[in-house]
Every structure is written in C-alpha cells, then in structure tokens.
C-alpha cells in the first residue's frame, strides 16, 4: 500500500497542528500540500508545525509552497514552524536564504515548545 504523502495531526494540548510530510515534494506533490495548507489556514488553524523529517527531496516548487504558507500564516497572526529538516532540505533552505526568514527547529518536540 502506498503511504500517504501528507498526514495532519492535531496536538490540542499545545494548540499546534502538526503536518507530517513524506517522500519527495516536487511539482507533482506540491499542489496536494498547498491544498491541505490552504484548508488548514482557512479553517483557522494558524499555528502550524511542518514535520520534514521524512522529506527525501524538495524542488523549488515545494519551497515556494513553504514560503507562501509562511506568508499566509503570518498575515493571520499565526506561526509556521519547520521541524526536523533532512540534510537535503537543509541544503536548499541554505541556498534559498530560508533560514533567515523561517522558523526552523531541530525536532517536532523542540518546535512544540
């Protein structure tokens, strides 16, 4: 059975919604992530943690979706935290200058603090 690309888990005690991403985040998968993200923000979930520990690869389309989500959440006075970046994701965050604008944490637990 194919594992789901995106899993959304609510952590009621902290008020955060954890979005777990799996596999690659390319041109094909990104629209799915964008749709989930839009639905969450529209429904008022503006405290998000994106768990990237299982993201093997991301293209510029995936990163653009991260940037768009961070902006969208910011306008709603929320916050979007990126957690447990894999080495490949870390590299492209570095190239794109995302570490200076996005909130990045070593793990989901650290992001929940």
């Amino acid at each position: 059975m194919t594992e789901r690309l995106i899993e959304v888990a609510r952590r009621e005690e902290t008020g955060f919604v954890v979005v777990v991403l799996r596999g690659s985040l390319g041109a094909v998968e990104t629209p799915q992530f964008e749709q989930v993200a839009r639905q969450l923000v529209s429904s008022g979930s503006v405290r998000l943690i994106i768990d990237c520990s299982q993201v093997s690869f991301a293209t510029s389309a995936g990163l653009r979706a991260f940037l768009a989500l961070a902006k969208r959440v910011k306008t709603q006075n929320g916050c979007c935290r990126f957690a447990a970046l894999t080495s490949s994701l870390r590299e492209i965050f570095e190239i794109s200058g995302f570490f200076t604008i996005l909130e990045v944490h070593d793990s989901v637990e650290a992001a929940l603090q």
Partner: protein
Amino acid sequence: MMGPATQARHKPTERERSLRTALVFCLVDVALMGTAAFHSNSLTIFSDFLKECGDAIAVLAAFVTLRAVRRAPSQRFAYGIGKLENLVSMSVVVLMTLGAIAIAAQALYHLRHPVAPHGTVPGILIFTVYAFTGFAISLHNRRLLKSQHSPIIASQAALWFGKGSFDALMAVSLITALAFRGNSWSLYLDPLASLVGAAFMIHSAWSIASESVGDLLDAALEETMQFRILKCLAAHFDDYELLHKVRTRRSGSRIYVELFLEFDPQLAMGQVRERIDRIRRSVGDSLPGSDVTVIPAEETCYGEG
C-alpha cells in the same frame, strides 16, 4: 535620427560576429570539399560535401535569424521574436538528422559493397584542417555560452563539436585506409567511421532538440534559476503580503519572470510601487538578461496555480 537604444539594436553583437565567421568558414568548406569530391571516387568525401551544404544552410539561417531578432521588437511582435531562435535551432536539428540518416545509409551500402577509394589526399588534408577549426569554433561558442545563455549559440557549439569530431574521424579513417590500402579490412574503415560520425550528429541533434522544445513550449526555468528567484523573494519577505504564483519562461536569450504578489491594502500606491521596484531590481540583478514583472494580485483574481 536614431536614438541610443535604436543604435544599440542595430549594432552587430558578438554572437552575430561569431556566426559570420562560421558562415565564411562553411562556404569555403563547401567550395573546397566540392572540389575534393569532384576529383575523387570516394563516396565518403561526396557525402561530406552534402553534409557541408546542409551545415552552411543552417548557419546562414541562424545568422539571418539573429539579425532579425536584434531588430525586434516591432509593433507586430511587441515581445520580440526570440522564439525564432528556437525555431531555427529545430531546423538545424532536422538538417542534422537528415544528414546523419544519409551518412548511415551510405555507410551501410559501403559495408555491403566495399570499394577502394582513390584521389583521397585533398580530402584528407581538408578533413584535418577543418577538424581543428571545427573544434576551435565550438570551444569559442562554449566560452560565449558561459556569459550569455542563447539556444542558437548552444546549437552552434554542439553543431561545430559534431562537425569537428566527424572531420577528425574521416581524416583518421582515410589516412589509415591509404596507409594500409593493400589489406582488405581497410576497405571497411570509411563506412565504419561514417557510422560513428552519424551517431555523433544524432547525439548533438538530440541535445539541441530537448532544450529548444522546452523553450518553445514555455517550460519553466531550470531549478538553479528558480532557487535564485526564491532567494530574492526570501530577501524581500517583508515587502509583500502574500505569494500567489511565480511564472517563468524563456524566449530566445531573454528570460521572463512574472511574480504574482499581494501587498498590504493599507499601503499607498507609491509605497507599493517602491516595493515592486525593489523586488524587480533584486530578481533582475540575480538573473542577468531577465525581464521581471511583479503583478499585484489577489487570490480571487485568478485562483491558485
């Protein structure tokens, strides 16, 4: 009287000068190889003469196209005619493919009916000289490509590399066939070398086609450039409210970037304009030769994409 911008458009570029040199070389090549083919029974030399004719047409078409592109944009082609470069590149692909098929067919015929070629010395000399010249022009075009992206120069670099390789192979095979003309195996050298040459041409044609087709179909820019745009958007994170869409494409040597951004509705129009200018300059500096448009947009205007 022409203004500075018009004068700049009418001034021949380095790319044009490069093509003019190549065109002169091609025409001399056609004349020399035609003479060599006339004095030899070698079908390999004759097929090369046909190939040179095809190359000369391709270079002439590229030269004329670049001149036309320099004079654009006009009222009719307000965005310029950069895509003409891609169309010409595709015609080069067709010519190269036809040339390769003709050479392969001839090589197969020679393998089945081997003949001893004579009168090949002028051909050998021409192949040797032009092998060196072909490699030199290809190298020059590749150096140009490092400073300026252009499908037409890329196709020329590939064309001349294929040509240089082909000429070198022909020279080596004819020299070997001449040196060992007493041996029956030497009769098969020319057709075998021709087949390798045809493979070179197909490989070059494929690499040109794969790039030009993408550009003609408005494929997005490659990832390295997309990341440069993202870096600019990250650097100007506080200048816009929402990021809706980024659309990119190429037209000849020009790069077009469209950024659909939403701005704080509380801002005055002048403030939005200042922010747009900052973002445009930033992306423009990051992608030389690009035409950047920032489109103030709302989600409801066009939906997400």
